[in-house]
């Protein structure tokens, strides 16, 4: 089922959660709605589900307008952030719920319901917990039950709100790989909301980056990470250094015009915001290549496999560089030393407002 959102606007009192937002979720894909809190991503998911009514705009399933249909009739599976399992029912009954509330003429016989629920519980690997209450399960187990419950009604669309949000780091990693594998087997059109860029980049076929109720960029994980369309996307996906600079005669200059950066610059001249990811800056003892500038080493912070080096450029902007441990060790950096930084890949945007 292909989902299309057309020009949706939704406000809560004075707070505008979605502004004239449009997007498409292609049939069979797993799409991440990625954005910071307040970006409207959960609201968007609820509008698609029919759990929130848009103030304006349309939601289309396979080209048919479903805006006026209730959540009950949309054939969606919704996995809530806090799972929303029915507290007073066993795991089995939770999963069976959607099958039991069907109108009598469409309801499966009891034996078929049992068979189906058991199969689903086996699929999400919690069949041994069938008789437990939700309160007796761990967070990861609840998440699996919530997913099985949503799948039981054979939805044509699966929507997940921060599916890994309330899990601890290890379970989160494990579950997101598992979700990806599950999607590869079932191919249900799916959308999930997350504020975690790693999660979005790792799990999704396609990432929609949201900010202040608008779509900033849509693309494959590689596209949005390697070719961010806006400064916001660049900043939101991973850490980043920002330099103020100028565009002049097809070249980008930073550091009061002293340093010219490699690569093509935007055609129009003017102020520029220059972004460089910390791992794409290289530290050298001596000047290297055409484009390099001096900086003074501040703090050295070991962080896992890399060392984060905080420096100050000669014109006074602060910079972060990530170097591998070996590289840092061979450089024998010390606080207060002067080194040369070489940018390998920069992204130049026209500076807004000037």
């Amino acid at each position, binding site marked *: 089922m292909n989902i299309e959102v057309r020009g949706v606007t939704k406000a809560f009192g004075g707070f505008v959660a979605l502004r004239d937002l449009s997007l498409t979720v292609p049939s069979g894909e797993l799409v991440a709605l990625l954005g910071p809190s307040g970006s409207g991503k959960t609201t968007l998911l609820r509008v698609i*589900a029919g759990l929130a009514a848009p103030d304006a705009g349309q939601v289309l399933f396979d080209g048919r307008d479903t805006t006026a249909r209730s959540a009950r009739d949309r054939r969606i599976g919704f996995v809530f952030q806090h799972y929303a*399992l029915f507290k007073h029912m066993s795991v089995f009954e939770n999963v069976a719920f959607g099958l039991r509330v069907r109108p009598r003429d469409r309801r499966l016989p009891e034996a078929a319901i049992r068979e189906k629920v058991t199969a689903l519980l086996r699929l999400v690997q919690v069949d041994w917990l069938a008789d437990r209450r939700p*309160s007796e399960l761990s967070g990861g187990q609840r998440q699996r039950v919530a997913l099985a419950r949503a799948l039981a009604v054979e939805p044509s669309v699966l929507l997940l709100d921060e599916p890994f949000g309330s899990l601890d780091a290890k379970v989160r990693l494990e579950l997101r790989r598992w979700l990806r594998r599950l999607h590869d087997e079932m191919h249900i059109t799916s959308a999930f909301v997350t504020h975690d860029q790693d999660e979005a980049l790792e799990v999704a076929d396609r990432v929609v980056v949201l900010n202040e109720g608008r779509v900033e960029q849509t693309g494959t994980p590689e596209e949005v990470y390697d070719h961010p369309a806006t400064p916001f996307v660049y900043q939101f996906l991973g850490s980043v250094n920002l330099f103020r600079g100028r565009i002049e005669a097809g070249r980008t200059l930073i550091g009061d015009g002293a340093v010219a950066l490699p690569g093509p610059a935007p055609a129009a001249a003017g102020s520029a915001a220059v972004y460089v990811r910390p791992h794409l800056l290289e530290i050298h003892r001596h000047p290297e290549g055409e484009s390099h500038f001096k900086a003074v080493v501040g703090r050295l912070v070991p962080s896992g496999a890399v060392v984060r080096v905080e420096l100050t450029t000669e014109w006074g902007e602060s910079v972060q560089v990530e170097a591998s441990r070996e590289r840092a060790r061979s450089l024998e950096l010390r606080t207060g030393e002067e080194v040369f930084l070489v940018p390998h890949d920069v992204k130049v945007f026209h500076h807004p407002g000037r």
Partner: protein
Amino acid sequence: MSRHRLVRVALTAAALAFLGLFLALPLAAVFAKALERGAGAYADALRDPDARAAVRLTLATAAVAVPLNTLFGLCAAWAAAKFEFRGKRLLMTCMDLPFSVSPVVSGLLFVLLFGARGLFGPYLAAHGVKVLYAFPAIVLATLFVTVPFVARELIPLMEAQGTEEEEAAVTLGASGWQTLWRVTLPNVKWGLLYGVILCNARAMGEFGAVSVVSGHIRGQTTTLPLHVEILYNEYQPVAAFAAASLLALLALVTLALKALVEWKSGETARATRRPA
């Protein structure tokens, strides 16, 4: 340390003495007074036809008022706890009004409505319908004073539950009734039961409002509390306390059920608390 203990013992003793004097002693006195002349006199007082009529009237009143106010409570709680709308606070305030009106004034309202010179009095009299000083007025006055009980128990409880489980039920294809029966009510059943118990206790025990509208016709419009009053004012203490003991038993049952409900809902709360 020893001074701390002393303070503790002294405060506990003071609190228990106060509660003993003000709560336990009166409760014990009801039964002691009722049995003052022995079990025979007690049984005679309860076998009296007027006493039986009073019990019947009290049960009949509660049988009408409690289900109606329970349905109201469910409706009001569904609207107020699961939806946001303008005027909600006003609605809640209106709901609580009967609590801040004196029972006697509550009764007076129905005299003003249905009395001989009341708003509907002449019309009703012309059509030979008796409301005031009869069963309908007793029921209406009881309804008025017990309106908030169930709603007040349910609303905070259902608000605390949120709407996620209901939304989940709807996305799974449940209808409104199925959602209410299978998801919402099982989650609030103990609170509902408690509200119904309280509503019932007040409905059976209401005195002031019912006293105004009943007319005190023996054997016909006297509820159990009014029966107690009449006997007491006629200097029949044993009979009065015998009848009162029935109401005191009702109170004890109410308290016991309340303790049970608290224990049960506490158990549920403990069971559903998310592990850290």
